């Protein structure tokens, strides 16, 4: 396939996906739309993380912290922190807080990118991990801004669109769950397109050069400092928007809502989705949202031979299923779902070329 046909196929696939996303709520129950909105939110965070880790080669184990920054920005702008003794009176409509959430998280990401320049590989990974670890207690320390451990409640505030009543938009009446779905997925699709535009251009080439060999990148005139910090900034901004949406969807933030496990699962999401690809990330997002739920529904006893008597639904069973599937998945699709796509694509195009005319 020539690059042009490839791009054409990409466009068509993306357009088809947009249509699919647009009509999906009509075919599922109202509540499913709410579930799917979380998939959209995770997708945004994964897109950001993949720009940093998959394309630029910088492993981050702290993206949950950037989500927390976005989530708290949104929550504080919406509800304010006067009731905890803080200076912000709040009152911004939820949707308008999202760009600010992205901006704040992005700036923090840029700032973090500078010291991160000195660190590489594992040391960087653990430095980012440190932010995720330090996040919850820092949030608690500044209680007057963040509400401490109890967090900030958003449900029922006038700033939250569609708490319980339907949302009228463009002449259509959406249920609260459908509204959340369309909000999350509109942003996710835009985020997807933006990521694609960034990565196909000069910036994207520079990112990949940094990933493949820093030494080679420098010798061909790519500024490591510039592109590494830029990748951190963009990636954190994505996480910030996702975090803001997460706060809106949960109508609540507190430190426990952004645990260390979140950062780790985001990493799982991009590896399952496929490092250095975008479309596979949809599956990464589905995976990290649905597998824990699915595992909870599994009867561990039925998965084992009859001779082994296992008590069903005992706590812990779901975690075993989750962990084992994660490991098996790494065996079966080493390069994630994205890698699987590419292989299938190659098989098809190879066959076409080898077929005699």
């Amino acid at each position, binding site marked *: 396939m020539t690059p042009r046909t490839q791009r054409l196929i990409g466009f068509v696939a993306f357009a088809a996906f947009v249509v699919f996303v647009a009509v999906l709520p009509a075919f599922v129950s109202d509540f499913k739309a709410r579930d799917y909105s979380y998939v959209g939110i995770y997708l945004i965070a994964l897109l950001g993380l993949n720009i940093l880790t998959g394309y630029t080669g910088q492993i981050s184990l702290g993206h949950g912290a950037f989500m927390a920054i976005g989530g708290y920005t949104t929550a504080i702008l919406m509800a304010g922190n006067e009731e905890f003794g803080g200076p912000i009176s709040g009152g911004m409509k939820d949707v308008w807080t999202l760009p600010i959430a992205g901006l704040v998280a992005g700036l923090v990401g840029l700032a973090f990118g500078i010291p991160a320049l000195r660190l590489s590989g594992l040391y960087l990974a653990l430095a980012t991990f440190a932010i995720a670890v330090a996040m919850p207690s820092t949030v608690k320390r500044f209680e007057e801004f963040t509400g401490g451990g109890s967090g900030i*409640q958003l449900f029922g505030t006038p700033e939250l669109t569609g708490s*319980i009543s339907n949302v009228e938009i463009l002449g259509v009446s959406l249920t609260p769950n459908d509204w959340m779905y369309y909000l999350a997925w509109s942003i996710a699709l835009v985020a997807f397109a933006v990521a694609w535009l960034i990565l196909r251009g000069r910036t994207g080439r520079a990112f990949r050069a940094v990933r493949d060999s820093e030494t080679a990148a420098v010798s061909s005139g790519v500024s490591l400092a510039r592109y590494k910090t830029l990748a951190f900034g963009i990636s954190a901004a994505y996480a910030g928007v996702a975090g803001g949406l997460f706060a809106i969807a*949960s*109508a609540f*933030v507190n430190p426990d809502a952004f645990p260390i496990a979140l950062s780790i699962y985001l990493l799982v999401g991009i590896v399952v989705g496929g490092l250095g690809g975008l479309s596979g990330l949809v599956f990464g997002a589905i995976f990290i949202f649905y597998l*824990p739920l699915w595992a909870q529904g599994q009867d561990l006893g039925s998965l084992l031979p009859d001779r082994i008597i296992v008590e069903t639904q005992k706590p812990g069973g779901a975690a075993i299923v989750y962990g084992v599937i994660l490991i098996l998945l790494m065996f079966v699709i080493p390069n994630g779902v994205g890698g699987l796509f590419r292989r299938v694509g190659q098989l098809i195009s190879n066959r076409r070329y080898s077929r005699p005319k």
Partner: protein
Amino acid sequence: MRLRSGLPVALIAALVLALPVALAGSTADPGVSATAILIGGTSPLTGPAASYATVARGAQAYFDSINATGGAAKRKIEYRIVDDAYNPAQTVQAVRRLVEQDKVFAVFNTLGTEANLAIRDYLNQMKVPQLFVASGATTWGRDAARYPWTIGFQPSYAAEGFVYGQYLAKTQKKARVGVLFQNDDYGKDLLGSLKAGLGRSGSKIVAAEPYQVTSPDVGSQIGKLKASGANVLAIFATPTFAIQAYVFANRLGWRPLVINNAVSATSNTMTLASEGGKNKTVEGTISTTPLKDPLDTRWKNDPGMKQYRAILAKYAKGANPNDANHLYGMAVAYEAVGLLKRLGANPTRAGLMARARSITSAGNPFLLPGVSVKTGKGDNFPIQQGQLGRWTKGRWVPFGGLWTSKRN
């Protein structure tokens, strides 16, 4: 003649009798079918608070035992437990799934202060009962007017802390109290009410050290409390950290009078803290509980505790009966069943809450004799009583009769 007229009469009678049932079927609230009532709740089956997963297990076992004898309100009780890993954002999503997708009749005994705060506004807006919250925060009872669909269960932390304060004020001339508390609403609730209970007595708090649930140990905090010159140590911590507090105090050779909060004072936990009898700091600890103690020989032949052990053995195989969280789960499930039974043939959510606001239950077999579960006008705290006890030679020895809290 009789036979011929008998048939239509019987038919009509059957129709008349069936009508309300049919109508009930069409107008009943979500979660209620002709044969079952579905309730649900979240529990930390994994994550940092996984030791509380046994609460839901105890409740589940009790519901199963009730179902085996016909259920309540002529229906089986289905109890759906969902893991939230002690993460309130997951609680929100799980509870919305329970309400909107699974269509539960009520949300029951969801565990954790923050988790319940996160879902309270939603459930009240949706008019879904948030029944018997598994948390002792004072807000569940205090703010009942603002949140009519939410009701707590256990004695509030505020009542508990006050009781300890009053005990010290009465029995100690000049106690210098050092407090280890969990850095969240639960720990701060207990700390504040302890201070209130001490009042203007000669005893006072000389040091208060918080800890984070995510930290590995509380060694440094205990060291600082000892250094503060305290002669009373108040432990307002969950079981793992409470055990640690004893271990570290003992290693420092520190033997203060210890006050240990109810959530960590089950015999099971105390036995672990005593390190096979080698830990001397444990001896003489003061705590309180409204529950019967599974290790207490007084209840060896008690019908309630026999029932508890039998139910656990049959419906929760492998569960440790000495873990009093099971007992707590059963006690709360017992009251839920009591409410459902009072609902009659046509259970509604509003009816459930109305009855939850007018409980008079004196015979809960899992609570100490004399502890009643009651709510009514102006009283939105189901349990407000407890028994002080002193840990003596490997078991709790009660003293001073039941206390009843008027402050919440």
